[in-house]
């Protein structure tokens, strides 16, 4: 993998380099940048065949449907799923909120919904609210000292009342990777739905929903070289066939009468309204770009960079690194604090060096509480990052320390 060549495919790096300082973008866990081919795929739709995907009999209407459904097939292959198990949404948050509404009829008072303390708020609050609406018990799985989630904890706490176990594949705040096959076997054992937040894993590592055996899975296009506003909710065919939609309107009906209506087949019954067609096309193009390189290759590259950064930061005075320290238990994310400095101040100084990192609580307040901190600085790596980016980060952090401790 030649990341220096890869960087050239992404116009943002040229656009944002300034005064000879390259643009070091280390916030792909928040949103990734887009290669020109992805931008072009959407530009082509907008400039030559923009049409709705519902009932356009004219030629560009047909072409738009073909492109949209072609993107769905790509997503299905990317996940090891069937096309009819792939629902286009506006992103992970929308997927999880919609799913929580879809599963509401399956939850009764006294049932249990489980999430972990490492969840992003978007895989936390929808379930907390569902528990409130239904009278279910909302259980937050505690973490180990290093912020990892032990499958043993879940095994000990899950029981016959447990109806939903919703956890993330990879922690967006620390990069910690969960043992999803073990969790799915626990969920299977107690008869709970296993909901997997794949926002931080789908862009970076091979995912096979058959092997993981999750019931539902959600991720966003914007974190995997695609545009904002497009995401996926995957659900097992046997569930999606039976579950009723939570959003109603055009494009999702079979029959509408004044007293009652019936729904189209899956997945159309879950896609009311005009979808983000350009976004789906862009996501399809992003998947093609990623597949040329291969996700196993991506993961190895990102882990290598994160491990470099983690080792160096761990050995620097005044730096605390959070999360597991074993390279094989983590994805390409490093989270740290600088003694005597607020995370935002560090990020601000790095920004003046043309280095973009995330600072704050990362929408993971339960995890920040677990560590007893208000926030961290997070560097997240992707295919376009290089060892030079890691070196620039380390130099920038030293400079920040110099300014504050001078």
């Amino acid at each position, binding site marked *: 993998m030649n990341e220096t060549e890869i960087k050239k495919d992404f116009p943002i790096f040229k656009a944002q380099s300034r005064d000879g300082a390259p643009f070091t973008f280390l916030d792909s866990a928040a949103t990734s940048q887009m290669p020109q081919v992805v931008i072009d795929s959407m530009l082509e739709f907008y400039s030559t065949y923009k049409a709705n995907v519902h009932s356009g009999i004219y030629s560009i209407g047909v072409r738009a449907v073909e492109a949209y459904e072609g993107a769905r097939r790509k997503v299905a292959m990317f996940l090891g799923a069937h096309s009819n198990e792939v629902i286009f949404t506006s992103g992970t948050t929308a997927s999880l909120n919609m799913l929580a509404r879809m599963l509401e009829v399956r939850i009764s008072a006294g049932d249990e919904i489980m999430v972990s303390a490492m969840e992003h708020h978007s895989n936390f609050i929808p379930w907390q609210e569902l528990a409130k609406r239904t009278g279910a018990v909302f259980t937050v799985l505690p973490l180990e000292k290093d912020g990892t989630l032990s499958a043993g904890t879940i095994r000990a706490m899950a029981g016959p009342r447990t109806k939903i176990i919703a956890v993330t594949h990879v922690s967006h705040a620390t990069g910690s990777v969960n043992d999803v096959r073990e969790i799915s076997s626990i969920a299977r054992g107690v008869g709970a739905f296993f909901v997997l937040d794949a926002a931080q894993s789908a862009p970076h590592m091979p995912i096979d929903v058959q092997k993981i055996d999750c019931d539902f899975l959600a991720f966003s296009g914007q974190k995997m070289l695609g545009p904002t506003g497009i995401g996926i909710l995957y659900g097992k065919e046997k569930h999606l066939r039976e579950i009723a939609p939570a959003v109603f309107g055009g494009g999702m009906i079979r029959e509408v009468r004044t007293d009652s209506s019936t729904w189209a087949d899956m997945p159309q019954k879950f896609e009311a309204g005009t979808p983000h067609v350009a976004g789906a096309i862009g996501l399809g193009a992003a998947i093609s770009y990623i597949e040329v390189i291969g996700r196993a290759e991506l993961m190895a590259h990102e882990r290598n960079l994160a491990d470099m950064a983690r080792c160096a930061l761990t050995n620097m005075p005044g730096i605390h690194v959070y999360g597991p320290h074993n390279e094989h238990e983590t994805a390409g994310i490093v989270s740290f604090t600088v003694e005597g400095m607020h995370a935002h*101040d560090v990020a601000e100084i790095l920004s003046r060096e043309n280095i973009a990192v995330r600072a704050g609580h990362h929408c993971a307040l339960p995890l920040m509480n677990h560590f007893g901190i208000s926030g961290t600085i997070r560097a997240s790596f992707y295919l376009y990052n290089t060892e030079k980016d890691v070196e620039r980060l380390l130099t920038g952090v030293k400079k920040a320390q110099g*300014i504050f401790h001078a």
Partner: protein
Amino acid sequence: MHNMEDELYKENVLHHYRNPRNKYALAGADIVGKDTNALCGDEITIYAHVNGDKVITTMSFMGDGCAISQAASSLLTEYATGKRMEEIQKMTQKDMERLLGISLSMVRARCALLPIQAFQHIIMHTHREYHA
């Protein structure tokens, strides 16, 4: 490229961050106000003694945060002494920028305005102040 030392983190800002003035919970405060920066979760509490003319005689603050919010809070507690309550509650971004001696981006202005917002969101007050 902008030089950080010359801009946002001026020596005065860093000095107040390292050595904040009036950082304690004021015993028997007439006014306690509190607010949170939704962006970063930083929380500032402002305490004040106010006389019968609603003039601030003492102001203090508590809470952790970035250099900007800490320096802004520290500077505010000094500036506010001897001023009328409403004058402080009406302070704008421009006023805070003058106090800090720096100009602020939209994102960082929220940090600097946090102590003002805390003083606007009063969570406790004594009757003496309001009915005097």
